[in-house]
């Protein structure tokens, strides 16, 4: 600051502390700090990435095994364009490819197919793993991969085991009802969480409608 230049003898009066710091020092402080911070964050990101991806994979795998009732063997199908393939597309990061998982019991019979689907719920996106039999559209169950619904109400779509169990054996397309379900196409919704319940039903309906033709097309080509 220029007013310091003319003050002689006595120390400069109550100037703001450090107000005479030259600009290059300010820039250097910020540049150095930014460089250190950037290097540290990049380093930690690289160190933690494998563990974060492992956790995400384990979550998907756990959900698949849950909705297919602990299958003895799992096959993975890869979606290329709108076409399912048993072999992964070459030269593509497998994590980026949409997959379907086919479960078999110990006799080798197919127990169902698990696919991932997500749509907006009440608060945020609801991500589900949905297990169903492509031949009959009967559900083997669903598991929640991610949701941020209201605690105590909407989050029952994940935490209320009674509600989750209601979907087993139901046949898509489903319809929600506030009373007890009377046929295989109806599911009783949660009191106080109508929108979250409907979101689950809609995600399942859309996923089955989307995936069934793909799976049947693959079956025609040469069985699953």
């Amino acid at each position: 600051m220029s007013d310091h230049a003319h003050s002689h003898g006595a120390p400069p009066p109550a100037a703001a502390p450090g107000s005479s710091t030259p600009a290059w020092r300010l820039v250097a402080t910020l540049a150095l700090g930014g460089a250190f911070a950037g290097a540290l964050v990049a380093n930690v990101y690289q160190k933690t990435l494998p563990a974060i991806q492992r956790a995400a994979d384990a979550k998907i795998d756990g959900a698949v095994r849950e909705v297919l009732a602990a299958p003895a063997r799992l096959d993975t199908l890869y979606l290329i364009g709108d076409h399912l393939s048993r072999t992964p597309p070459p030269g593509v990061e497998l994590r980026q490819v949409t997959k379907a998982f086919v479960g078999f019991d110990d006799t080798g019979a197919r127990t169902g197919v698990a696919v991932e689907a997500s749509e907006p719920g009440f608060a945020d996106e609801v991500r589900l793993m949905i297990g169903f039999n492509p031949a009959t559209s009967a559900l083997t169950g669903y598991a929640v991969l991610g949701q941020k619904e209201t605690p105590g109400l909407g989050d029952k779509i994940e935490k209320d085991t009674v509600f989750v169990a209601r979907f087993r054996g139901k046949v898509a397309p489903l319809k929600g009802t506030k009373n007890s379900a009377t046929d295989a196409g109806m599911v009783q919704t949660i009191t106080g969480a109508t929108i979250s319940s409907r979101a689950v039903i809609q995600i399942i309906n859309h996923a089955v409608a989307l995936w069934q033709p793909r799976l049947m097309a693959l079956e025609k080509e040469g069985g699953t």
Partner: protein
Amino acid sequence: MTAPTAAVSKDEPFVPGAPPPAPPWLDVWSGIAQNNPVLVQMLGLCPLMAVSNSLANGIAMGIATTFVLVGSSLLISMFRKYIASEVRLTVYILIIATFVTVADLTLAALFPDISKALGPFVPLIVVNCIILGRAEAFAGKVAPLRAVADAIGMGMGFTLALSVLCTVRELLGSGSLLGFNVLGPRFEPWVFMVMPPGGFLTLGILFLIMGWYGTRKAQRAKEATA
């Protein structure tokens, strides 16, 4: 940068606004009790409201906040003489944001479920006013040992207040503690306790108790001197 600890001498020059000298254990205790960031300073109430519906989330949030507080206070105190005061807030936020990112990634890698439950509130520790408040009021003006002592105390004070709130809300709102059912199947959970109104109510009652205790203490002291 050269070893900054070497620059810390026994005869600290006077820093305007610096806290009065005190031994480190008193700095720790002050954060837990008479300067508790939540119950006395009323700072950091947003994360307090947001994550206090289950005890596991609260403890994880408390630990993450304490980690960021200690790390950033130590660094800010070590470099306090090299940080020009014009850019100090920028540098503080830079240091805090770096520690928050490290905490967020570490939490996601080691405890994916807790990280998911806390959601955006871990990255939001950056704007937790307790941390910038302590950096500006304390860590930027004292030697590293005291800065760390203060950060530990403030972190523990925050975790303690958060845990009290979480315990009440999870117990009444879900009938459980740390996910284990304690009140039995015959207890009907007060769902509203895990929702925002329950948080405000519990916090209000907590402040009421603190206020009542404070007035009573003052009254006793007055009677004793009279």
